[in-house]
């Protein structure tokens, strides 16, 4: 079973951070406080949408065909993801 990467604290609903990264070959561990990448903070469906969008060369028409949705519905989904990305990682 593919485990989901949690990014929200189940205790207080704050955003989780990475405290440790480990090498599975030599067992070296790196500790610190790292933010999760923006894409990993999107929901599973949103991540899948972004992947499909890239695979379809950024074509909303192809996305609409794949998802069996109308063009404006797909564009609205994309707009929602853009809004969420801008909220998670505001432009400098």
């Amino acid at each position, binding site marked *: 079973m593919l485990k989901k990467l949690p990014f929200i604290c189940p205790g207080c609903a704050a955003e989780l951070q990475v405290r440790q990264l480990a090498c599975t070959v030599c067992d070296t561990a790196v500790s610190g406080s790292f933010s999760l990448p923006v894409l990993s903070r999107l929901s599973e469906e949103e991540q899948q949408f972004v992947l499909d969008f890239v695979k379809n060369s950024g074509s909303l028409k192809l996305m609409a065909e794949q998802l069996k949705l109308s063009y*404006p519905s797909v564009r609205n989904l994309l707009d929602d993801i853009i809004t969420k990305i801008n909220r998670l990682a505001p432009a400098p």
Partner: protein
Amino acid sequence: MKQLLFHPFRRIAGYSALLIGLVFMAAAALVAYCNGCHFDGALDIHTGLTNPLWSYFFEALVAWLPLVLIFFITAKLFSRSRIRFIDIAGTMAMSRWPMLPAALFCFLPMPLPGQNGNIAAGIIGVLGLLACSIWMVALMYQAYTVSAHLSGKKAIWSFVCALILSEFITKLIAVKLASVYTLNF
């Protein structure tokens, strides 16, 4: 089926919606020609006198085209999303498909002013026409919110204002054309 009847624009928009909408509008115009029912405004449905066939198709266009323009301008003003004209035109055309069952309701022998008719048929007819009008407005709201990516109070208020303006302008054009071409509504 429920989705197709009440939430069609999630799956259908653009040119396909336009084609479906135009077919339904043409069918409604043909039925209206047979029973003298009129769609002389963005929201108007009523029975009346018979006019030449071309005027029924003209009525349908007069009720739809200004509506599309007004909703496109409103969407451009209120939405931050990219809006395609074809989406507004197509979904607004398709949202008029309840006009076909509405036209069919007009076959009922409803009592007209100064004429005798069946009271029961009148009640069924009026309720049917009312249901079709509400259904059409609900579809128009969905057409607008899906095409313009709007929601909440902004969507409701801009929709209500655009609809009132559309009704006023389409009615004005219909009345003007009726006087020019001596049509009876």
